C-alpha cells in the first residue's frame, strides 16, 4: 500500500544488509577461485604497508575414504533396513552399523524412491526429517557424503540415509517429502556447494548471497577471503561499493571496529 509513497525511504528489502552483503559482494568481484582467494587478495594489496603474507595452512591430509563399518557378522538387520532393501530393490548399496546407529548407503539416482518408501511404508514410516548434512572427502572421486537423519515419531526409530556424490552431481531435493529439508538443504548447498535440484528456493542461507566458495569444504582455507579483507581496512574500503563520501576514512574506522 504505502510503498509507492515511501519507496525512497531506503528500507527496502534488497539493500539493508550493509555490512555483510557489502563485504560479500566485493569478494564476488574478485576473480579468485574458491580455493586460493587468500593468496590472491594478499597479492593485490597496495605496496605501502606490506603485510606478511598469510599462508593458508594446508589442510591435514584427509583420509582416503570414510569409514562405513559393516555390521558385525551374525547381527540381524533391523526391520526398517530389510524393508527398504525389499521396497526399493537394488537401491541400497551398503548397510552400515556403528555404535548403535544404522545407516543405509543409497545410489544417488534412486534417492527419492528410497526416501518416499521410507516415509510412506508402514514398517518404516519415517515422518520426521531430523537433519540433512554432508561431509567432504576430497581425494575421493565422489567426494561428498550427503547424510539424511530420519526419525519416526510413530515407531520411534532412527535411520541415516547416505548418498555419495561428486562435485558436479545433482542431488534430488527431498523437500517435497519433508518440508523440513528446505533450510537444511539450503545449508548443504551454502556450505558445500552441492547441487540440489528441484529445490523450491535454493539460496545461500548462512553466508552472504555473493559469497565465493563453500566454507565447509575441506579445501577451503580456515582464513577466508572475507576475513582477509576485513583485516585490512584500506583494501576493504577500496573495493567497497558504497558511494565514497567526504570523511569516508573516519567513517571506515568506525565501521571496521
Amino acid at each position, binding site marked *: 500500500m*504505502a510503498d509507492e509513497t*515511501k519507496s525512497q*525511504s531506503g528500507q527496502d528489502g534488497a539493500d539493508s544488509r550493509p555490512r555483510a552483503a557489502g563485504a560479500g559482494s566485493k569478494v564476488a568481484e574478485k576473480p579468485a577461485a574458491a580455493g586460493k582467494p587468500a593468496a590472491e587478495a594478499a597479492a593485490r594489496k597496495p605496496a605501502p604497508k606490506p603485510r606478511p603474507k598469510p599462508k593458508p595452512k594446508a589442510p591435514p591430509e584427509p583420509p582416503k575414504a570414510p569409514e562405513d563399518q559393516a555390521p558385525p557378522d551374525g547381527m540381524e538387520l533391523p526391520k526398517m533396513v530389510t524393508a527398504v532393501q525389499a521396497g526399493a530393490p537394488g537401491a541400497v548399496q551398503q548397510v552400515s552399523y556403528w555404535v548403535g546407529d544404522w545407516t543405509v548407503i543409497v545410489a544417488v539416482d534412486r534417492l527419492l524412491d528410497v526416501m518416499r518408501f521410507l516415509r510412506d511404508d508402514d514398517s518404516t514410516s519415517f515422518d520426521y526429517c531430523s537433519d540433512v548434512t554432508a561431509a567432504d572427502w576430497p581425494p575421493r572421486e565422489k567426494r561428498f557424503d550427503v547424510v539424511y537423519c530420519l526419525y519416526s515419531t510413530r515407531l520411534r526409530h532412527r535411520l541415516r540415509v547416505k548418498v555419495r556424490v561428486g562435485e558436479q552431481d545433482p542431488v534430488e531435493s527431498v523437500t517435497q517429502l519433508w518440508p523440513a529439508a528446505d533450510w537444511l538443504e539450503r545449508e548443504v548447498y551454502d556450505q558445500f556447494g552441492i547441487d540440489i535440484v528441484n529445490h523450491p528456493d535454493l539460496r545461500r542461507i548462512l553466508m552472504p548471497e555473493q559469497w565465493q566458495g563453500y566454507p565447509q569444504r575441506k579445501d577451503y582455507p580456515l582464513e577466508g577471503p572475507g576475513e582477509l579483507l576485513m583485516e585490512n581496512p584500506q583494501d576493504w574500503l577500496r573495493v567497497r561499493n558504497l558511494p565514497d563520501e567526504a570523511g569516508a576514512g573516519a567513517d571506515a574506522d568506525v565501521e571496521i571496529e
Partner: protein
Amino acid sequence: MLETIVVPLAKIVVLLNAVLVAVTFLVLMERKVIAWAQSRLGPMRVGPYGILQAIADPIKLILKEDITPRKADKYVFTLAPIMSLVPALVVFAVVPFGPDPFYYLSDINVGLLFIISVTSIGVYGIILGGWASNSKYPLLASLRASAQLISYEIAVTMTLVSVILTTGTLSLVGIVEAQREGGLWFAFVQPVALMLVFIGGLAETNRAPFDLPEAETELTGGFHTEYSGMRFSLFFLAEYANMIVISAIVVIMFFGGWLQPFPNVPALAFLGFVPPWIWFIGKIFLFLYVFIWIRATLPRYRYDQLMALGWKVLIPVAIGNLVVTGILKVAL
C-alpha cells in the same frame, strides 16, 4: 488593562510552567511506580531517591543532537511535534482548578466541546510525524495512531454527551457545580460512562494496553522512531500532558473536580480545610497512578482487536448509555 491582559498572562505563564514541570515529574513517577511494581528501585542516582532525575532528563534531551533524516520533509518534520504538544497545553485554558475565577483562565460555555475539539487536533502531530519521517515503521505507526484516535474519540465524545444530558451544561465549572448541587459525584450516577471514558482515554493517550502507535516491540518506537533530542521530547511531553488532560476530564466529569468527597454530608465537612485545588490535583494524580499501574500490568492489544473493541463494544455501549440516560431524563 491589569484585569484583561496582565492577570491572564501571568496565569498562563504559571499554568504552562506548572504543567511542564508536572510532566517531568510524572515521568519520574512513572519510572518509580513501574520499578516498584517490578521489584526494582528505579532511578536512584540523581539526587536523593533519584528525584532530580526529573531535571536531568530534560537537560539531557535538550542537549542531545537533533537529527533530521535526509529524506524527511523538513518543515513537516519540525512542525509535527509542535502540533502534537500545543493542543495538549491549550486545553488547560478551560480546566478549572477551583470554584472561583481565580483558579481558571476562562470558563466558556462550550468548555467540554472545546477540550474535545482541541485534543482532536493533536492527532496531526502523530500522523505528520510518521509521514514526514519518510520511513516505513513510523508510517505504519501513524496510520495506526490516526485510526485509533479517531475511533476512540467517537466513543469518548458520545459518552460525554450522556453526561451533558445529565447536567444540561457544557461548561466545566457548571458540570462540577451540578455535582455539588446533586450531592453526588457523577461516578455514581453514570458508572458506565466513567468506564467508557476511562478506557477511551487510555486509548486516546496511546497508553498501555492501547499503546500500539508506539509499540516499541513491534514498530520499534512507532511514529517517533526517527525523532531525537528536543523534538522527541516534545512528543514525550505531549503524551504525558495528554495523560494529565484525560485525568482532569475524568475528575471533572465524574469525580467532582475540586469538590471534597461527599460535599453535602455534614459529618465530612471537616475535609473542607483542604483547599479545593489540592483536592483536584490529588484526584488527578490518583488517576495518573492508575494509568501507570495498568501499564505495568497488562499486555498490549493487537491492532485489529483494538479497533474491534472500539467500534463493536465501546461505541454501541456509549450509544446505549446515551439512550438510557435520555429515557431516564425524560421519565424522571
